[in-house]
């Protein structure tokens, strides 16, 4: 009797509950640290995609997805690594992150590769990550800075700027980007008067600005962070009258910069990964007042989450070893184009054995070692706000 009961109970369990499960996806971004003002909308973007998929009921026989947040600190390798390990211990099946390039490399080497975990970073842009030995575990929905260097050089040339002074934040991201900008701008015929590093978190940047001013140049390009040294350099330059106009690469684009600097920033320009068109508009209307969908790397975060879930659906598994190879497949042609808000439709198509080409909010097209091909928004600060003037 007892045996019969056990057997029937076991058969009921296997019959009903086995397929629907709760999939955990980790979100590892810098809620503290130099890009903390960007982290909140990024996490919310990713969570929006997960909620959409959970609510649809079409994901892996009605499975739900639960986000798990953790702090990368952006520049704190120790913190990011231990938090990534904690997420793994909590049983995540996929890892969105990390955000800044240095910690992303550290998490990849120390946590993802040893544990066979797949990572999609929405914002790590260092060119070094293109060539890193990643066992095909690392993808990014953000383009490499090598591409940003080309775009920045084009923007500068189109605006008739002949010479620039260049300063970068002293880490993987800053150095990689500065190298790319310098090489591309020189190739295009421009002159780079000085390339110098600055440290984040100092009280006073007058010495750095003194050196930059002495070298001269039409504008100052600041490859730094908008909540950190980048802000300090710009303030100090404006105070001493060293430079009036600034070139602002991705890490410097955000609403807090024009707000903190004030009207003197008007006329400065730059670019950030992102695209126009249908995808971003849809995400904007979905986000509503909850968060700012146009905040940097927020669309990329939504896309990173969506790619994970599509790949899992395609592989019919939440095992990184099985769904990992599917990521490139669902991101690129051929197949039905999928935009934000259509995730249920995409999951349906995949379940029926069809092909999807995920476009998403940031026009995802993964190339080479699994990174975004890179479309950029050209930004100009006008009337105290970042205004998109052009797409490149």
């Amino acid at each position, binding site marked *: 009797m007892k045996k019969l009961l056990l057997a029937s109970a076991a058969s009921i369990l296997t019959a009903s509950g086995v397929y629907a499960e709760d999939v955990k996806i980790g979100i590892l971004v810098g809620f503290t640290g130099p890009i903390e003002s960007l982290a909140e909308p990024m996490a919310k973007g990713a969570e929006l995609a997960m909620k959409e998929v959970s609510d649809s009921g079409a994901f892996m026989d009605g499975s739900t997805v639960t986000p798990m947040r953790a702090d990368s600190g952006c520049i704190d390798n120790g913190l990011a690594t231990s938090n990534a390990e904690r997420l793994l211990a909590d049983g995540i099946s996929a890892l969105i992150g990390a955000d800044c390039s240095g910690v992303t490399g550290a998490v990849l080497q120390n946590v993802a590769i040893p544990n066979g975990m797949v990572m999609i970073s929405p914002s790590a842009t260092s060119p070094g990550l293109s060539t890193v030995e990643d066992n095909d575990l690392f993808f990014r929905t953000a383009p490499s800075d090598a591409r940003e260097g080309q775009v920045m050089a084009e923007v500068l040339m189109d605006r008739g700027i002949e010479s620039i002074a260049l300063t970068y934040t*002293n880490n993987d991201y800053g150095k990689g980007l500065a190298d790319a900008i310098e090489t591309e701008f020189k190739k295009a015929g421009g002159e780079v008067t*000085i390339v*110098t*590093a*600055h*440290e984040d*978190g*100092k*009280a*006073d940047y*007058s*010495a*750095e*600005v*003194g*050196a930059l*001013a*002495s*070298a*001269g140049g039409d504008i100052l390009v600041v490859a730094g962070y908008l909540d950190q040294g980048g802000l*300090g350099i710009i303030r100090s330059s404006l*105070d*001493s*009258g*060293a430079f009036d106009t600034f070139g602002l690469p991705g890490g410097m684009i955000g609403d807090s910069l024009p707000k903190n600097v004030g009207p003197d920033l008007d006329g400065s320009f730059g670019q950030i990964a992102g695209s126009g068109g249908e995808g971003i508009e849809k995400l904007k209307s979905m986000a509503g007042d909850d968060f700012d969908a146009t905040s940097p790397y927020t669309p990329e975060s939504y896309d990173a989450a969506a790619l994970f879930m599509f790949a899992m659906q395609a592989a019919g598994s939440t095992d990184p070893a099985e769904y990992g190879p599917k990521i490139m497949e669902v991101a690129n042609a051929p197949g039905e184009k999928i935009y934000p808000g259509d995730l249920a439709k995409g999951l349906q198509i995949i379940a029926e054995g069809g092909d999807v080409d995920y476009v998403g909010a940031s026009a995802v097209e993964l190339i080479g070692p699994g990174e975004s091909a890179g479309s950029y928004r050209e930004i100009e600060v006008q009337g105290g706000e970042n205004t998109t003037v052009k797409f490149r």
Partner: protein
Amino acid sequence: MEFLNAFVALSNYVLIPGIAYGSQLALGALGVTLIYGILRFSNFAHGDTMAFGAMVTILVTWWMQAQGISFGVLPTALLALPFGILGTMVLLVVTDRVVYRFYRQQKAKPVILVIVSLGVMFIMNGIVRFIIGPDDQNFADGARFIISARDFKAWSGLDEGLALRTSQGITVITAVVVVVALFWFLNKTRTGKSMRAYSDNEDLALLSGINPERVVTYTWLIIAALTTVAGVLYGLDKSFKPFTYFQLLLPIFAAAIVGGLGSPLGAIAGGFVIAFSEVTITYAWKKVLGYLMPEGLEPDGLVQLLSTDYKFAVSFVILLIVLLFKPTGLFKGKSV
């Protein structure tokens, strides 16, 4: 015209920031030197005392701003400064009663007091971070510039701009006022004289009826005023972040030691020596030389002796040189 441009560029990037930074260091070094002279130990908690004073001032400033109290073109923080000084006085006197007095009664060696002050430093550091957080805090208001670079260019017609921030002007004026008041106090008042007597020879001072506990208390009260003023000026001019005050400890000690520990005049001189060394050695001279050198001889390179990354190393090197060749410092202080 060329010469004027060179001079303006030099003032803008070297002289004005150097003088402001030097004044801040001098005020900090004066405190260190007074403690060394009268209490006979190197106070490592000095940087964090500055942070504490600045923090109290900032909190009062925010309250005043919320109440709509302002100081016109001057920053509200100047109005809040007396409250910051009072807060720091309470902190320092309590610290002395609870911690330092015990070791004084034990006649502890200076090196033990140094380690004790290190412990006090960590506690103060923790208190400041606990109350106001580790982040940058902005509390400056009022007019930002006395002379702005753009206005100066338009007015003078020169190629180079000259900027003088309100905070820099206030820093220098306040520093002068505080230093004059301190010297008057030490040289002319009875209490000041008894402090100097106690500093010169403790036993002799005791014999002539000077109450040592009174001298110690007065010293801490003066230190509280000095540190708060220095901390607030630094915060106004640069930015308030608890960690940067900890970093300031090295240049401040370098200034005090270069000038000669225990010599107030030396502390001031030392502050400016350190400040100008840091600024001039890391400055790229290309622009200034470009104006001054005859046609064709302008430098192509940056003419920068050291990258700005090594700014703090400069004070360290100066400290080493002074300790090696003239341990008593420029103004014949006590040897370390």
